[in-house]
């Protein structure tokens, strides 16, 4: 709807902000010194508008602002003419629709004039968190504009190409103009009005992550099979009751195929019950290395060997 990247994007990990969090995540949380000050003086312990009092080792959970430690190197082919900093770095910023429209407009102009390459435009829009779908369309529109302008200028030398493009333009006029902004960008809704829903945060983020961590722990303890049987049994008995407020579905494997929010809600409701059984999990048969030479091991044996050591089992057998 917003044509913005999901939280997995490098610059879009936090909704409404553009920041390379993977590079600066260590300086964002409150440091020990600031935490002590904060406990002593309350949340207003430090006036962040005063540069002299600013902590040099953390931003105290601030994402934006004049913090040199938040500045990061731009992506490889980021257009240099948009970087204002002398150190050739970019800083995090809060996103809003006007900013996104300006970014798209600039990219459109630069691409149409041939100043930026497609890759430069992609990298520029990527930093703004604009998703691949929108970027592809923006580039397609500007390419059409540029090619049509060229064909029109040289229509005497390439009359067939010009005629084909003219017919195409008549049929799809919007494809030969600037990319039209999505409805949400143009109406008077602000980006910060799209808030996170507590239900999603609780049941898709917290519950799912917790259950995955526990599953990982059971795998390392060699207790996963018993754990899956135990959890699957609990969920199956509840599923048979067809409760509309606790829609449980049996867990077939360690993957959550077909699971939706209400299934995780049911899992959260039942978690105290079946997590109470964790101390009684029995380990599976102990793994033993095959006694044959390594060159004679089967794929299954190789996978078991890797799994027993917590290593990835993906890949091919090397002969």
């Amino acid at each position, binding site marked *: *709807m*917003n044509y*913005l990247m*999901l*939280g997995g994007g490098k610059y879009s990990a936090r*909704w409404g902000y553009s920041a390379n969090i993977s590079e600066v995540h260590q300086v964002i949380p409150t440091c020990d010194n600031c935490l002590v000050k904060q406990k002593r003086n309350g949340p207003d312990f430090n006036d962040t508008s005063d540069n002299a009092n600013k902590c040099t080792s953390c931003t105290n959970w601030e994402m934006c602002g004049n913090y040199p430690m938040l500045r990061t190197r731009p992506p490889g082919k980021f257009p240099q003419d948009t970087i204002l900093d002398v150190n050739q770095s970019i800083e995090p910023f809060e996103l809003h629709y006007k900013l996104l429209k300006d970014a798209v407009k600039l990219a459109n102009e630069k691409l149409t004039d041939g100043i930026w390459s497609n890759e430069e435009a992609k990298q520029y829009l990527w930093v703004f968190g604009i998703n691949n779908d929108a970027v592809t369309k923006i580039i397609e529109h500007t390419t059409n504009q540029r090619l049509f302008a060229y064909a029109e200028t040289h229509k005497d030398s390439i009359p067939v190409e010009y005629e084909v493009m003219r017919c195409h333009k008549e049929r799809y006029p919007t494809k030969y103009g600037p990319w039209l902004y*999505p*409805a*949400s960008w*143009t*109406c*008077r*809704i602000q980006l910060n*009005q*799209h*808030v996170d*829903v507590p239900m*999603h945060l609780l049941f*898709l983020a917290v519950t799912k992550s917790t259950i995955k961590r526990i599953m990982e722990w059971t795998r390392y303890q060699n207790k996963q099979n018993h754990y899956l049987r135990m959890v699957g049994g609990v969920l199956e008995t509840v599923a048979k009751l067809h409760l509309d407020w606790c829609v449980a*579905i049996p867990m077939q494997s360690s993957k959550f195929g*077909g*699971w*939706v929010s209400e299934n995780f809600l049911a899992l959260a409701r039942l978690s105290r019950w079946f997590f109470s059984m964790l101390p009684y999990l029995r380990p599976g048969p102990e793994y033993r290395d095959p006694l044959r030479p390594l060159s004679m091991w089967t794929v299954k044996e190789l996978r078991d060997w890797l799994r027993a050591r917590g290593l990835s089992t993906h890949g091919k057998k090397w002969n």
Partner: protein
Amino acid sequence: MYRRGKFSLLQNLLRLTVQVIDDHAYVSLQDCVAHLLSFSHNFSTMNYKRVSTTTTVQKITESKAVQYIRERAVAVMKNDPIVVLYCTESSNDFDPKVSTKANRQSCWIKTVTILSCNTFDTVDKRSSTFPIAVGKKGHSHEAVELAFANELDRLRSGKCCFYYKSSSCIVPVYLELMVSLQDQLER
């Protein structure tokens, strides 16, 4: 008896007109407001005064966001009495109840809850929540979003008037979207 004919049940039931926009069933937001005001809900039509910001916020109508909506409504309507409403929209994908497997023939729905900006007005959220659009999951909902945005713009202009049952007269209505609830994929 039920579906066809002048006196059929369906033709005489009080219901909103459903239109089709780009493969989506869509109900006009203005129709929803008209529908809501045609019942005897008590929405104040007086001029609003700013609530003190020093008091603890206990209701959403005491929050700054709602206060700003009231102020913008007053700025638009000057001194005329007006019903000031706010709405929250929510959209998400869902599976049909009859589906035997998850993620098959999934649908998309957008709902709107319309509430009063006045602290003393109480409306049951269940009766003021309307499904606005229903479509298929994965399709582009751009046309619906555009229609919805245009309607929101019209309702913010202060030029939309509706019949108001409680006072049995036509009143101007100002409505703003306060918050949009969506998961990451929806956004």
